[in-house]
Structures are given as structure tokens and as C-alpha cells.
């Protein structure tokens, strides 16, 4: 077939059909059954692993240690985390500054963070692989690490009363982030991926 001419009605129709099919690439899918199956048939060893570069993130989570989040204000008032500080948090998680544990789902993350009163929001996360919890200056921040085609996306959750996080989109040091408040929680979705991908993940949070 010759090179397609979008101005030719038949070629234009063919291109439009191809483009419509391409949109099926991002339809949401429920991974829960598959996750349970794989966890049962190909279990991961539950060891404390150092976080390795990007590809190894599929097997690891970060246990945040208090000092890592020392930049949060020590105050009974809501802390204000700047985009630069959130980007630093992201880089700390992916660079392996803390020891790790692995989970396969949000439910499992919530069980592992049982003492956390910030239950992770419900989301059909496709590549849930890790969770972490930190308590800094008495402000709890829970993190969920998603392996998004080898580019990790991190979802942080904290009480809205503890963290001042207005609805906005920000970027710092190559890390894009979408912040929002919903249901009494301050949520930040961040990663070195296009903002549109972060919006897709944020839209799945319930």
C-alpha cells in the first residue's frame, strides 16, 4: 500500500480508524485476579531488599525512615511540602536510600501498613509493587510505588489536616506531580513520566 495521504478520503478514513483503535491501548483493566494468580504461582521472596535501579523496582518497596522526610515542617499546623521537596522524596525512593519490602496489591500494602491510619486509596493499580510508611514529626505519610512500564510512579497519601496540598500540577527536577485533596486526604501522584500518564493514574484513585 502506498504512503497514506490523510487528505485522501479513503486513506483519511483508514488513519482515523487506526487512531481510534490505538486508544484501546490505555483502557483500564482489572489486574486483581492476575496479581493473585502470579503471587501464588510465582511468589517473590519477602526479604528486605535494597532498592536498585529502575528495573529492579518491580520487586521492591521503600520503607521510609523518618529522617528522609525531615523537610516536612515540625508543627501541629499542616506541613507545606514544596515541589522541590516532593521531587527529592521521589528521588530518595527510587535511588534506594531506604530498605524495602514488596507487595502485590493495594490491599496487601494496607495490611503491611496496618498501623497506618492513612489507608491507601482504592485503585485498580496495574503495577503495584511496593509501599512505604513514614512518621515524621508526627505526620504520617504513606507511599505506594507503582512500576509503570519500568518508570516508577509514586502515590503519597497523608491526612489533609497534616499536609497542605492544594489541587495543582507541578514539576521540579524532572519529576512531574499532580496534587489533590479528596476525602480528607492529601494525595500526590508523581513520576518522571508525562503528566497525562499521571492524570490517568490519579483518575483511577477512588
Amino acid at each position: 500500500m502506498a504512503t497514506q495521504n490523510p487528505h485522501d478520503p479513503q486513506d483519511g478514513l483508514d488513519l482515523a480508524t487506526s487512531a481510534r483503535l490505538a486508544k484501546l491501548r490505555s483502557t483500564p483493566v482489572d489486574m486483581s485476579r492476575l496479581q493473585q494468580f502470579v503471587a501464588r504461582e510465582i511468589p517473590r521472596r519477602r526479604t528486605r531488599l535494597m532498592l536498585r535501579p529502575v528495573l529492579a523496582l518491580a520487586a521492591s518497596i521503600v520503607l521510609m525512615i523518618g529522617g528522609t522526610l525531615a523537610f516536612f515542617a515540625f508543627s501541629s499546623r499542616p506541613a507545606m511540602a514544596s515541589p522541590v521537596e516532593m521531587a527529592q522524596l521521589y528521588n530518595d525512593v527510587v535511588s534506594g536510600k531506604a530498605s524495602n519490602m514488596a507487595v502485590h496489591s493495594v490491599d496487601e500494602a494496607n495490611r503491611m501498613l496496618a498501623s497506618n491510619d492513612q489507608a491507601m486509596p482504592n485503585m485498580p493499580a496495574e503495577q503495584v509493587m511496593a509501599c512505604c510508611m513514614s512518621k515524621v514529626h508526627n505526620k504520617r505519610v504513606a507511599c505506594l510505588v507503582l512500576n509503570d512500564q519500568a518508570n516508577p510512579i509514586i502515590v503519597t497519601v497523608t491526612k489533609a489536616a497534616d499536609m497542605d496540598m492544594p489541587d495543582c500540577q507541578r514539576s521540579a527536577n524532572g519529576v512531574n506531580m499532580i496534587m489533590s485533596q479528596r476525602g480528607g486526604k492529601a494525595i500526590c501522584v508523581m513520576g518522571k513520566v508525562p503528566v497525562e500518564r499521571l492524570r490517568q493514574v490519579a483518575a483511577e484513585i477512588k
Partner: protein
Amino acid sequence: MAQDATKRFYAEIWPHAAMLLRAARLLSGDADDLVQETLLKAFKAIDSLDSDTNARPWLLTILRNTRIDQLRRPGRESTDIDLDQLADDSGSPAANWQHPQEMLEAFSDQQVIDALKKLPEEIRWTLLLVDVQGIDHAEAAAVLGIPAGTVKSRAFRGRAMLREILAPAPQISPD
């Protein structure tokens, strides 16, 4: 050794699981079952995957072979159509699609998926690889085991057939 295989599985194969599940939804009523079998086969064959190789076409080939095995099982009647017997039909003429992009956008994802499922299996595979997955013709040809030229012509015919299913051309009365 087993630990290495498990590590490699989660690092190199698991990130593609969602992609496989989306593809399987276009092929089978039980997409989870198809992908579960595929992932197990991939895990067992992981030593044949070079770390430098893109795992996606490798996994899609395993998905395809698993699907073929499923269709061959006793009790599974193939409802596929011999592609050579299909009339060379360009489907609805372009004139019926005045604003193709807007018209196609008006169909929901589920409507498009349902229409895809009505296509012959080989046509569906071609559109799945070329359009849904965005794989180039050469790579799609390798997965399907056919020449690249055949991939192109099947994709063209498949899109036309899809449009005909979504918006059939009005029947002209003989009167």
C-alpha cells in the same frame, strides 16, 4: 537459578502484564485465563529471552501460541473464517463517513471491542498488533508468521471490516 528467574520475571515480564490482559480481552471471553497461561509459559521459558530483547513481541508471540493451543482443544469449535474466501470488500465507502474521526470517537471502547471480536481471528490479531499495540509491520509479521506485506493488507481490510460492523452501509433497495 529459580530466584534469578523469579527476579527476571518481575523485572522484565510483569510490567507487560496489563498490556497482555488488554490484548487478551480482544481475543477471548476468559482473558484472565489466557494471560495466566501465557505468563506461566513465559516464566518457564524466560531463559530464552535475552535481557537486551524487547519482551513485548516475545510475550505477544507466547500469547498467540497459547491462544492457538486453546482453540485446538477438544470441544472448542473454531468459528474462524478462511481469509482467502473473504470477498475483497472495502467496507463502507468513504462517502458514508463524512467526519470519520468524530464518528469513530462516538463509539465507546466497549463497542469497538465488541466489533473487533466479530472479526476473523487473524484479522483481529493484525489490528491488535498494528493498531492497538502500535507494533511496526515487520515485528507484527514476525509474531504472526506471515510476510510484512500481508500484515499491511490485512490491516487495511480489517479496518474496513471494523467500520462496516460499527456502522453498516445502508442497504440499497433493488426497486
